[in-house]
């Protein structure tokens, strides 16, 4: 069963960004430039936070606009990046309405969530979780 990272309850997010640091640590580095998850305020911290993750769309627009088929739809939802085909055109970045395609500036290629759930292990307040995508689930585009 394919898995994806889900935002379970964004109202519990305290903005600590532990998930962002975890995602980069997964690559063996500190800092947060390699992160595929992003947390920012919802227009000032008094309004709470927004957690930007790849929601593994069933019909991913990022893959549809890829001119070289470097982004391959994954069965059950989401995409995988075949970096050797990517020409770094940024189309995918623009196509994602959530802004969940982050950019690897060193490689000049997108930075795509691999749905490993490492970040969720460092969320102290159960805001995010790795979940199985149910076969009968057909979320509408733009839903959360």
């Amino acid at each position: 069963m394919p898995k994806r990272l889900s935002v379970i309850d964004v109202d519990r997010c305290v903005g600590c960004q532990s998930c962002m640091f975890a995602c980069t640590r997964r690559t063996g580095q500190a800092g947060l430039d390699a992160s595929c998850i992003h947390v920012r305020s919802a227009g000032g911290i008094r309004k709470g936070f927004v957690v930007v993750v790849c929601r593994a769309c069933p019909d991913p627009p990022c893959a549809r606009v890829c001119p070289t088929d470097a982004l391959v739809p994954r069965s059950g939802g989401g995409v995988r990046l075949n970096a050797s085909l990517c020409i770094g055109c940024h189309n995918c970045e623009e196509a994602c309405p959530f802004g969940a395609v982050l950019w690897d500036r060193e490689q000049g290629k997108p930075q795509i969530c691999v749905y490993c759930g490492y970040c969720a292990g460092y969320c102290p307040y159960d805001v995010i979780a790795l979940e199985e995508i149910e076969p009968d689930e057909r979320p509408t585009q733009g839903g959360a």
Partner: protein
Amino acid sequence: MPRDDPLTRVLFVDLSRRRFRVEQRPDLFAEALGGTGVAIRLFDELCPQGADPLGAENPIIFTVGPLTGVYPLASKTVAMFKSPHTGNLGESHAGGRSAIAIRMAGYGAIVIQGRSVMPIYLVIDEDGVAFRDASALWGTRSAYTSGSVLRRREVGSGLRTIMRIGRAGEKMVSYACVVTETYRHFGRLGLGAVFGSKQLKSIIIGGRRNLAVADRRAFRQTYDTLYERATVSPLMKKYHEIGTPMNVVPLDAIGGLPTRNLQSGRFEGAETISGEHLASEYLGRRVACAHCPVACVHLAALRIPYPNDPYFYKTLMLGYDHEPIFATGSMLGIADTPGMLRLMDEIEVQGLDVMSGGVALAWATEAMEKGLISEAETDGVALRFGDAGAYIEATQRIVSQPTDFYRALAHGVDHAAAIYGGEDFALAFGGNEMPGYHTGPACHLGYLTGARHSHLDSAGYGLDQAAARAGEQLDPIEVVEALVKEEQWRQVLTSLVICLFARKVYDPGIVLQALGTMGREWSEEALVALGVDVLRRKVAFKRREGFDATGLRVPARITETPSPAGPFDDVFIRKALAHYDTLV
């Protein structure tokens, strides 16, 4: 240290010439780690003797540390400057996203020099500095406004800090603060006034980068140990749950909660301003500094009706902690929780340090009770303990300064009491207003001797409370020696910019382990020696600028109001100060 760690880059910004440059200073970070240790070295290099705190020659130094952006709870920024409030060394720390932003922009330190000819704000990223016109922002009524305007105007949400001042900073009130991310402050000693003197409204800093570690496996293991200590172990529980205001009720119970300008250590309204009451009735959200899973920042949601407009309400989201509660609650005799929160909000709107502000208002109230001042001085405001409305009006006047009295009060209680009298109950130590603990002689000796005149320098209240529990008498010599030892170790923590709330998470063993994963080999002896050296440098700077521990003014009030650690007198304090003078 990994060769490409950008920590060693020091960004120098010259506001007078609108230029910047980056210098590589590996020497500083190898010798002193970062934070306070690097800041005092740079400050010694750059601050001329006798510098005017509000002059172009006063440098502002921001520093972060090697563990920032690598490990959790190392997300404080140290600011160092000459304080317009005390006329001596100024050091203030803030969290929010400030430290992560400086580190991710690729700097270990940022130095602001000179003075702009017009209101300006800075945008700092890895490529350098943009100087932007802030004349439209200058003079806006509320400090909240500039934050929300700049948040929309500039890019980088989630990866940036927005430091800014309010009107108090623009008007150079000597205890004006710098706010960052709405709820965190470089609160003490008047950094806001130094910004104001430079016509510097705001600094936005941001960036993103990876940082190389020396040992990936050990890095992940060390991280997990620290993360577990911060989230699962009981070490940080108090900060998670009720937060710092869990001190209010226990302090009141032992008679150590400064009340009505420290006329008492007990407050009959302690229950309604307690952390427990605020959590159950007002807690609206908890937030964290970047890279800290603890989330100690508690925000109260206060719904306020418009008195003459039915069906109109506004909801304030207001950060609260022990110190703001002491300063706007017990110290002013305010038990009315909404009133206390509204006063806190006004202090935020104006951009004042809440602790100095509250203590200044408390002194003014007692001065009015004793007839030293009248409504002629206060512009018609009748200051009375417990009257939040009057304090809101007086707070506005500390900034708008309609009379000589408010102009004096805008320089703190030392200054105002020197003019109007009432020095016995003017509760400042080394020129800085007191924090929210009256536990015994050790806390006050901490405020007097601490390099920042802060409760966080050496935590004397811990010594007092231990003595009170054991029913033991404190000894002045032993107290001072314990305070100095604690302050020395804290220089190590603040050189690593570790949050002092996490001082038990970061014991020496894990500090060495964490530094090792970053390719920095230190020993416990070397860390201890660094702490001794950093404190010695800070005190040497202060002495150069006229500090004399034996000549400090000691307000009589602290020995008159009973304390949990039992009675102590001026002789005790003087003996301790004389010993301190020989010790450091």
